[in-house]
């Protein structure tokens, strides 16, 4: 799957927010999980729960897993994302993928620093008010400011605002 799964997850997340869903699911992949956890750390989604094909009960959303993953059920696992709303409006208004399977966009640390200050670098537009960028680094998927803290660059996954 690789990056295409992340791109699909980004689009699905945006569509779900615009449809005012409370809970949605994306395929259970390591890439998706890392991105979902990064989004959760940034406060953009409410919860990340690994569950089955049916939505987990509300009380299970507080846990990270409804049941242990085994070889028997791993194929049916999905990541259930709780979506956030504030003041009758979604917290996430748009999620747009930067890297695509046809073009992977990477950014070095100085480039990321420029982008975070609002200046464009190559195909990456500068960040505006309320925008964040998610970067896949060798320390996992990080938000751009986390990456700057840890002084790592990497593959730019998506832009969320």
């Amino acid at each position, binding site marked *: 799957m690789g990056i295409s799964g992340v791109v699909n997850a980004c689009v699905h997340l945006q569509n779900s927010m615009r449809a005012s869903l409370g809970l949605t699911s994306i395929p259970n992949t390591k890439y998706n999980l890392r991105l979902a956890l990064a989004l959760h750390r940034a*406060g953009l989604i409410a919860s990340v729960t690994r569950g089955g094909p049916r939505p987990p009960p509300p009380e299970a959303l507080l846990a990270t897993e409804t049941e242990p993953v085994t070889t028997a059920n791993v194929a049916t696992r999905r990541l259930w994302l709780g979506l956030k709303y504030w003041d009758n409006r979604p917290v996430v208004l748009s999620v747009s993928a930067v890297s695509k399977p046809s073009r992977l966009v990477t950014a070095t640390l100085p480039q990321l620093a420029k982008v975070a200050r609002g200046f464009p670098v190559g195909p990456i537009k500068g960040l505006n008010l309320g925008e964040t960028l998610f970067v896949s680094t060798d320390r996992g998927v990080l938000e751009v400011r986390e990456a700057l803290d840890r002084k790592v660059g990497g593959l730019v996954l998506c832009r969320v605002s």
Partner: protein
Amino acid sequence: MSVARPAARRLLSGRLAAGSGAASCAAAPATATCHQLGFAHQFHSSPQLSARRKPRFANVRAADMGLMDEKQIDQFTKEQFPKYTQEEIDHLRTKYSPAQIAALEAGEAAIDPRDLTVQGRLRVDPYTMPYIDDFAETQPIIDKRAKNQEAPDPLARFMNMDEFTADLVEWADKFQEGEVTGKLKTPADFVSDEFKKKPEGQWPGEVREAAHKAFQSYLEGEMSKQAANPEDTSGPTDADILQYILERSGMTDKNRTTDSSLALALPSKVPGVAGMYKNAIDPEDHGLDDIGIYQDLKRRTGLRVKDILNLHSKQLVQRRVANQTRLGKVQKASIMYVVGNGNGWLGIGEAKSTEPSIAGLKARLLAIRNMRPIRRYENRTIYGSVTAKVSGTVVKMNARPPGFGLRVSHRIFEMCRAAGIQDLAANIPRSRNPMNTVKAAYWALCNQPDPERMAIGRGKKMVDVRKVYYGGATL
């Protein structure tokens, strides 16, 4: 000496006049005319005549023709214009009031009958009235209708129930003929003596009920008695009743007939209503709004007239619009105004009218009503970047650092100035329709992202680093 000068000419003419006068007077002394002639000015060039001009054909006097024979005049006068005899005067006294008689006598004394004979004549000129009239009676076609009746009663009002009943009884009393039927009984006639003196409200329930039942049956009996006797012609006829309905006045004017069907006009100040039907000028306005244009706005917005007049307003768009009807095109002016207080409030208003000035006024008042607060970062620019689209017009706006200025198109410039934004970049990449540009810019200014809200939504603490450095001092 120049005679052209007025002073010299005056002096010269005076000298000549004095000289000639002195000379002629010496030749023919003691003649008054000589003195007058000496000072007479000639205003025309024709020679002066020495005496009155004689007519070429001598006129003949009336007296010479025997027309002015005094005897004949007196005789004619006595025959044609005799004085009133005592009998006639007495008869007139029966017809006229003493004041009118006095006026008649004064008129008789003022005109000499001889003058009527000598000077009076019947007119034969083309403008003569086609009848001989002493104006004793009015002619409906020629004269205006005489207004002999009184004016409507100024104090008349509609009758209340009691007055109406009294009026009806008064009318009905005119028809008291034939058999007297007597007075109708009342419910009090059907109760025992102890209740008769008490008012009906104090009767016990069963007594009152029984009394009403008896009274009802009594009324029905009376009705059937009348119905059994249709030959009874006493009382008003149908025509009388119709006349009562159509012609009887419903007011308290005692059925007064007048020449006018119009009641008197209302006085300038109707007691009890004075001050309630006309908007008084508010003394708080200090004479700024005597016409009352801003009174409604004042009530809606709570602004003072002084503040309303101090608002920054600008006409941004004007165009002619036409409504095609079957009678042709109805042209109107459509005007868009922007109003702001220069400190974060902005409103736009759009109005149409056949009169451009009225459309402008309406648009401005609407814009003031539509004023809304605009979010401003550091009271000088907007938050982040906003994009708005109205129809094919897209307006993109970006916040800019202090001192950047307003690098925007002229309409957005006026909007920024009215709202109190000093640093802004905006571009209109697509259609530049004026009206849609203004609308899109207004939408963009009203829908800026809110960092506080984002921070709350994400559960993050937000710090504006511009307020961290330099001791929090900003421009």
